[in-house]
């Protein structure tokens, strides 16, 4: 059975350059985690990346923020090839995006306020009073102004994420990356974060890339969606197309059935039968020492 990645759907009207362009990205750790990934994200759109646990979503995100270097392939942000940039140029690119990590990744030795202030203090020449005001504005935006003097250890999971988001938007980024923003949150807090992401995307025109498992959230916020499977981009398409696949009946088309199973969260389908069939007998025989 072949799982060729479909050609990247670029039904974005403008002939404008994509803000993020990933080409044939390959990364191998112990095994090949990313296996020729292609992805374009256009200015102002919200791209949701989905996929099973361990399929390489976070690894892809780490490449986009230049925290990992690819084995081969290209990554362009704002038209600049990340691989060719030196440290200083890379830092200039980094100032133009923000990222919310899965755990929030607040600096535990600093208060919430200091966390948000840090990028401002290090990368702008604003005076302390102005920075203080900026910090309060950003925290107000995520509903965390009351927590300005708290330490990260005193915050709940949802508060950590919101504080992390305030830090991510401190420098008014043009791109925002989110790694599983609603994982581990209650439905209401999760919906609030979704609303926040949409506000930032729609009101400020921030280009948004979200990795998520939560399908409700994904369909709420996405303009386009991408399905990653075993290190390959299975499908990149507008939200409506994914909705159509989700709501249709099984067709026998392997790719679509696989996506459908994932979107619906069914316990049976191509995803699970593939998992079951792979090397099961060999495993058992191996374990028996035969």
């Amino acid at each position: 059975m072949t799982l060729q990645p479909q050609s990247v759907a670029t039904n974005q009207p403008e002939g404008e350059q994509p803000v993020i362009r990933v080409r044939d990205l390959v990364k191998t750790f112990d095994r090949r985690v990313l296996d020729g990934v292609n992805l374009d994200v256009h200015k102002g759109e919200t791209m949701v990346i989905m996929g099973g646990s361990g399929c390489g979503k976070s690894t892809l995100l780490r490449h986009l923020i230049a925290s990992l270097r690819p084995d081969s392939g290209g990554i362009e942000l704002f038209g600049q090839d990340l691989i060719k940039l030196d440290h200083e140029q890379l830092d200039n690119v980094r100032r133009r995006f923000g990222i919310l990590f899965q755990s929030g990744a607040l600096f535990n030795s600093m208060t919430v306020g200091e966390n948000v202030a840090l990028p401002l203090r290090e990368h702008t020449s604003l005076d302390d009073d102005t920075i203080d005001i900026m910090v309060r504005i950003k925290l107000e935006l995520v509903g965390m102004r009351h927590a300005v003097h708290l330490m990260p250890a005193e915050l709940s999971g949802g508060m950590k994420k919101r504080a992390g988001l305030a830090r991510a938007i401190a420098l008014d980024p043009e791109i925002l990356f989110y790694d599983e923003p609603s994982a581990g949150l209650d439905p209401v807090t999760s919906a609030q974060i979704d609303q926040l992401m949409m506000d930032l995307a729609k009101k400020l025109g921030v280009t948004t890339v979200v990795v998520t498992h939560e399908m409700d959230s994904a369909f709420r916020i996405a303009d386009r969606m991408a399905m990653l499977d075993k290190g390959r981009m299975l499908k990149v398409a507008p939200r409506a197309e994914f909705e159509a696949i989700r709501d249709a009946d099984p067709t026998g088309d392997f790719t679509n059935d696989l996506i459908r199973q994932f979107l619906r969260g069914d316990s049976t389908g191509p995803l699970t039968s593939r998992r079951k069939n792979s090397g099961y007998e060999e495993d058992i025989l191996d374990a028996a020492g035969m």
Partner: protein
Amino acid sequence: MGETEEKPDFVFNRIGRRALGGFYYVGGMTLLLASAVTWTFRGLFTRRVSFRPQALAEQMIRVGVKSLGIVILVQTFIGIIIALQMEPALAEWGQQAMVSNIIGVAGFRMLGPIITAVVLSGFAGASIAAEIGTMVVSEEIEALEAIALNPVRFLVVPRVLATLIMMILLTVVADLMIALGGYVAALTVLGPTVHQGYWDRMSTQLMFSDFYTGLIMSGVFGLLISLIACHEGLQVKGGAEGVGKATTMTVVYSIVAIVMAAVVFTAIFYVFVWN
């Protein structure tokens, strides 16, 4: 694979891999040192990168204040121990007054720096490794990089400088405490032959070179401890367990490195300075 049939080349492979691992480790440390030095100079001499004296002060307090009490305690006892150990042997030759000379030389040249370094590798080294390791696990290091802040500049430089400076300052304290410990033993146990003229004999015996070679060594120890701690911390993989391992290995590697450096520097000073 069978348990008993371990082929000889397999053993050599293992030795080879160990040696290679050692080279990589030293290489990694050297790169870290180079990077820390580069960022220190950039901090001092370019306007775009601020030096962050506040972070340095924080780290100096953290490294120094915590260790000061233990250094004073341990080094006073070391002074007492040497005095009590040496006196009977010297008495055989009627030279018990020389206790003070021996304490001066042994303390200032070696015991002051080396025992302070061991204390500091337990206190500062382990806590730096645990702190940075925890930051790796909780994605804080990646977060730093993502907001365009270099972890070496931001975390390693203040910790290395603070440990270096505090190591030297604490060694000065340690030297004095060893001398004082010996004096206490002389006053309370060893009697007037030893304690009368104790300080005079020590200051005639000691040369300035005894003092500064000790401080050079302690600076090197401070550099080793902090670099190993940062290196171990930054290399942490796999959660809390990894942090624990980094902490332990920091202390182990530090002590090995301290002793190896002590041998090398003692040999150098023996040939070029003390003769």
